């Protein structure tokens, strides 16, 4: 077996295009997951039992289901719910909804780590509820939730490879097309494994930098 380097050189630009697509999709999915995750986290610690339990069910179901099922329900099952989505938006929304459940848990553990005395004191001093959230809880939560948050982003980068199954033209899908064109199998897959690896190393390093920055800021 000979490793054909020129294949990787020839298809390099195509692979990089796929990588760019993967990065965009993950970025948008993470934005959705964070934007949805915060209210879900607040609902998880809500005083109303109905709100708490229904969000808990959502989180547990999402965390107990393979993401492939979530994607299939949205993309293939969507039309019978009257929801017709293209592959790319279906993939981004699916990953966002899935990630939101995990981010909700991360934010919840961050919220609950703040001693209630602080919140009471802040309320006594006349801060509104949203001021307490963004001025008192938020900054302290940040250094606690960055490590698990970074973990979750890395997991989403890896899960994004599954979008190839619902025909989203991201890195893994592009590679499958190269495999179909060239009949070379090992080279393209080793190449994208290295690309994912590099992307994930880069992202984890950036988050570690961010973590030290936040710690220093405090």
């Amino acid at each position: 077996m000979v490793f054909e380097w020129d294949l990787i050189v020839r298809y390099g630009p195509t692979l990089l295009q796929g990588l760019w697509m993967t990065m965009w999709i993950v970025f948008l999915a993470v934005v959705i997951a964070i934007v949805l995750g915060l209210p879900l986290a607040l609902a998880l610690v809500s005083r109303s039992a109905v709100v708490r339990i229904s969000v808990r069910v959502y989180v547990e179901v999402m965390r107990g289901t393979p993401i492939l099922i979530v994607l299939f329900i949205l993309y293939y099952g969507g039309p019978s719910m009257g929801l017709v989505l293209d592959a790319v938006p279906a993939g981004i929304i699916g990953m966002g909804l899935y990630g939101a459940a995990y981010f909700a848990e991360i934010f919840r553990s961050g919220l609950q780590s703040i001693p209630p005395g602080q919140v009471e004191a802040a309320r006594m001093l006349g801060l509104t509820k949203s001021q307490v959230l963004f001025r008192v809880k938020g900054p302290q939560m940040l250094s606690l939730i960055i490590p698990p948050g970074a973990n979750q982003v890395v997991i989403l980068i890896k899960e994004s490879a599954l979008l190839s199954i619902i025909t989203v033209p991201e890195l893994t899908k592009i590679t499958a097309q190269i495999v179909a064109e060239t009949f070379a199998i090992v080279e393209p897959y080793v190449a994208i494994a290295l690309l994912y690896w590099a992307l994930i190393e880069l992202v984890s390093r950036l988050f570690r930098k961010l973590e030290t920055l936040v710690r220093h800021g405090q």
Partner: protein
Amino acid sequence: MFIAKGCISLDFSALNSGALEALGKGALVTATISGVSILLGVVVGLGLAFMLLARNAIIASCANLYRSFWRGTPLLVQLFIVFYFLPKVGIDVPPFVAAVIALTMNTAAFQAEIYRAGLQAIPSGQVEAARVLGIGIWSIRRHILIPQMFRLVLPALTNEIISILKNSSLVSIIAVTELMRTGQQIASASFRPLETYLIVGLIYVVMNSCLSWIGARVENHLLRSEGRTYGV
């Protein structure tokens, strides 16, 4: 790009007893693949964890590289590499075996990290004391380190088992007829993807809930038995 009509009609009649039986069989295959991979992963993962903590820099960095690669690439890509690479070097394995190999290599890396953290949490004084008493290093590992380590890492290990059970759905791509693939077959035969995948998702949720329940029970049991041992 986006059309919503706001009417949901669910029809589960396509999922007759035959379909449900097939899903049951699929769930059994899923459980088998995950179970075998997890158990093999415990053995490989333990070996890797001790390698990660080895004083020999070459051994430690080899284990480090392995862990970094298998934790840093998508399982789907790993699955393709194992599935396509083995025949290329003249090893012909059925898809089921390729699936177990890929899942084992993957979970071993994650388990190694869990075990490493657990081993490092055990006070080093214990090992020093055991060494002074003349207990061999393998005995220390088997009788002192590993039993305590497993108690410490049980919650993390339960999470890893659940994540492998979920990730095993990917092996449907290389034509292993487990739960996910059975679901795909039923969905395409009945033209009822929504209902089918809802049921398949439900089966995964039930299986995973059972796992976390068992994990919590075992953890509780260990906590209580530990209390007895130390007379707390």
